[in-house]
């Protein structure tokens, strides 16, 4: 199972003032807050932990077909792991000066992922192209939809597949992850 999340750091600094009173406490527990303040770059750490929580949320939601919920507080980051209730997700993050990108995954996962930095936001069509190629079908046979819980699904020839995908875009950046 997989989930991903990308944060455009420039846009995040315009959209969110995480130093606002009460802001961190709504999302991060005390040990996460300590990690933020102890970090060399606190701003970077806020968005890294945020993207870990968001990516794990998407993987968890897909794994259990959960209806949408706003509970970043329940996803607890420790090192590169995120735990929710009794479930654990591993994460890998890519950090540059411009964006932070995190993929969350369970153990039995063989995913590929691609980040688009060219503002073209072509990530959905590129994903369709990739799936068509891997499954050896026509491009027109592949469609992306959302299910009743808002989880993205892949259809081939109008039939729902079990291909797990995750999509994320923020500002100039976008990304897909697919588990084939």
């Amino acid at each position: 199972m997989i989930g991903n999340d990308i944060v455009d750091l420039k846009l995040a600094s315009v959209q969110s003032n995480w130093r606002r009173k009460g802001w961190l406490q709504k999302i991060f527990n005390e040990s996460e807050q300590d990690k933020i303040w102890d970090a060399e770059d606190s701003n970077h750490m806020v968005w890294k932990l945020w993207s870990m929580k968001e990516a794990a949320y998407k993987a968890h939601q897909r794994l259990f077909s959960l209806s949408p919920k706003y509970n970043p507080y329940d996803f607890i980051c420790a090192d590169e792991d995120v735990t929710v209730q009794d479930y654990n997700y591993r994460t890998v993050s890519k950090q540059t000066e411009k964006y932070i990108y995190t993929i969350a995954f369970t153990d039995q996962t063989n995913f590929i992922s691609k980040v688009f930095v060219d503002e073209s936001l072509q990530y959905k069509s590129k994903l369709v192209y990739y799936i068509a190629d891997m499954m050896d079908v026509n491009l027109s046979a592949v469609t992306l939809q959302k299910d009743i819980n808002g989880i993205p699904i892949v259809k081939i020839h109008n039939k729902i597949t079990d291909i797990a995908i995750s999509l994320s875009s923020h500002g100039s950046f976008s990304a897909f992850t697919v588990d084939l």
Partner: protein
Amino acid sequence: MTKEELLSKLKTIIEPYVQNQEGLENMSEDTNFIDDLEINSANLVDVILDVEDEFDIEIDNDGMDKMLTVKASIEVIQNKLAAK
């Protein structure tokens, strides 16, 4: 406070974070903050903090879980106001 007053206050609170103005014009109880109004998910924290300030209530994690739609938010606010 009537539901209409509450709705109008909520609309004023969320307006600065809305990225889809058309969605705001057509706002109803079924409106979803992220899907319909394109509010950035990190900004939902700001919505919640603004709601706390405006109504002088505290929204706990259980309340926060639900605050993805207009309808659910109104219910959370009404419950907290009633408990004051």
